[in-house]
């Protein structure tokens, strides 16, 4: 079973939520954010190169131009490898745990798996972010020895930051699975 719906993130950019039902107690949610726009890349690249050219115009040192090319290339690589998140996914497996993974534009993937015995609940929380108040989904963790205390919080969909209507949808189906097991 697959569903694909379009939502917007807190900045108004469109993102898509993809729910995949593997079985009654295993569901996967993938939030894909928008791709890198070519316009933005052009603006940054031309900005750096124009700056380098002005410096070159006054100093007449060709090393400046080489540096500019290297800076743009390395910057782009670092950006797609460490900053730009292509999609984030949440795999909820009833009675086994929750797996959070985010894959970067370069294909790098970071994954963490949280065991069921450590999960206290999944909730929607409010946070102050810059000048606005946003909602986010988070997993409350507990220590197995002290089941009533929340030991730490793992925020989900940190880089795509979907809006509340998307979060509610994910929240409801997560609770459905968690309550079953």
């Amino acid at each position, binding site marked *: 079973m697959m569903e694909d719906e379009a939502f917007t993130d807190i900045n108004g950019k469109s993102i898509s939520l993809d729910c995949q039902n*593997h*079985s*009654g*107690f*295993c569901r*996967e949610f993938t939030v894909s954010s928008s791709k890198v726009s070519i316009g933005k890349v052009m603006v940054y690249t031309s900005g750096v190169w124009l700056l380098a050219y002005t410096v070159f115009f006054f100093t007449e040192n060709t090393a400046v131009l080489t540096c500019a090319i290297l800076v743009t290339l390395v910057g782009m690589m670092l950006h797609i490898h460490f900053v730009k998140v292509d999609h984030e996914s949440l*795999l909820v*497996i*009833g*009675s*086994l745990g929750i*797996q959070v*993974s985010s894959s970067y534009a370069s294909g790098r993937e970071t*994954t*963490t*798996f949280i*065991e*069921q*015995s*450590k999960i206290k609940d999944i909730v929607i929380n409010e946070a102050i972010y810059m000048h606005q108040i946003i909602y986010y989904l988070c997993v409350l963790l507990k220590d*197995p*020895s002290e089941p009533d205390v929340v030991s730490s919080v793992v925020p989900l969909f940190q880089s795509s930051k979907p809006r509340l209507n998307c979060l509610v949808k994910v929240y409801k189906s997560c609770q459905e699975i968690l309550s079953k*097991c």
Partner: protein
Amino acid sequence: MVLKVFFPQCCNRADSGLMVGRWISGHDSAVVLAVIHYPFIPGQVKQYIQQMQAQSGVELSVLGSWSLPKEGQEGMESFLRDLSTIFPQERWLQINREIGKTGFTCQILDRDQNGRAVQRESKKKTEKADKANGEAGGDKEEEEEEEEEKVIFVHYEQRKVMQSQLHPVENGVSDPKTDPPSELRQVFQTVARSQPLFFLDRYDDGPLKSTHWQTEGREASIIVELLKQASVPLCLLIGWLLSIWTWICGIRLFSLYPLRFLSSKLSTCVQLSYRTEHMRTLSSMKPAVGHTQFMRKANILVSFLVDVALGMLLIWWLYRDNHITMLANTLVPAADHVAKELEQLLQWLMGAPAGLKMNRALDQVLGRFFLYHIHLWISYIHLMSPFIEGILWYGGLSACLGLTFALSLLSDMVALLTFHIYCFYVYGARLYCLKIYGLSSLWRLFRGKKWNVLRQRVDSCSYDVDQLFIGTLLFTILLFLLPTTALYYLVFTLLRLVVVLFQGVLHLSVDFINSFPLFAMGLRVCRSYRLAEGVKFRVLCEEPGTALHLLMEINPLKCSTVVQTYRTPTYSCYPKDSWAALVKKLFVGELIYPWRHKTTKTD
């Protein structure tokens, strides 16, 4: 609850037989370790499992049956069901795989206290469940309804799971009642500890045949086995040499005051004692207990080998083409040059440096004092110059003990060759410190206050006119002489800081070679599954009608965590006080030392 079956990938295509493994209590999960094939005699299987249980300490049991029917092997259903009566268990798993299908089907047979078999089947659920409930009692009805077909197969690669170490490492056996290890940790422990089960390969002539990751033959490396054999006499030899070395170090002559003080200040001696401690750890005859200790030993060994290799490289470069003589020939003129530059600097300071008008008398006195010192120093260097080449030649040999020794020796030599700069710095700092303290206490007198030593605070005090007059006079004199002293102090502190910086870089690199966990890093790069941070799951196939199949992969540890966890504890090399404290010390005129604190040892 959902039943989780951890199934090894190597058993996917195994012939039909019995599954041996362990139920993890409290988590409703089963770990399948191996499959024992038909034909077998049940008594022998029981005996084998008991034997394995004694060897590994894992509560092994027969979990159920596994069937992969081949041509001409149909109608085994009833036979498989009968097997459950031979191996009495609370639960009996019956896993089927059909040819042409990727998914498995699983049936669970429950056995209640009375010994009657209660059966649940995924396909004929309604009939069977009703019948079973009728026998077992109405209580379980709802539960049974919910529980049907809820099985997750988690496929794992047995070899990787067996060899990997889940982090954070648990040392020692924790009390099982207070803090039971998590489910995944128990799975990892079970697979790792049931190693004796994997020694039975297909070439054995025993009555039983089984499938697991080493079915095709046991995996081992000849080189590793040979090294293990060779390590015993080597350890003995090193231990003997070490005992001689400690005997030499223990002679009373070395514990006399000046020698002990000197050896604690020389970084070569510190490095020597440090290396001795390392070798003692390595040469102990006891095998490493636990993962942490093993990694520590391995890290030390690899660091030592790399260190010696780098040292040999340095020796090869030094003694080729007579680089030593070249170095010695440049060293004396360099020291001369530094002294000459210093002399010029002093001459400049004795005039009007940067247009500042100094107190002429004090300036002359200080300048002449330092000039005389430089003169002494130059004559000392010239006295030494014939021997410098020999010293370098023999000192270079120390690099065969490792690059760290060569670096430490270099640091010591720099300290000795720049001793005059240190002296200047100390004189300047002491003078400056004296003035600052005098000024601060006279400033208090100026305001009619004094420092109360007993109460550690400033109290008000009434002074005589004479006292006030003398105090103010002295204050004025000190204040006007301060710029001259401050200038000398500033210049020599800058010189000293350059030397300290150089020595600090040397010490940092020595510390880096000593403490960097090379072995752990190598494992992380080449065998990333050996150091696991956790696991990650991937959904495998989805065939309607079969259970959910997940693939469990190992999530390798991050490089930064590897360095943090396995860093060999060394003498701390970083400045103990913060930058602000350092600046304050410089401002007040307290002495600063190179970044090494021998007494503090950080883990």
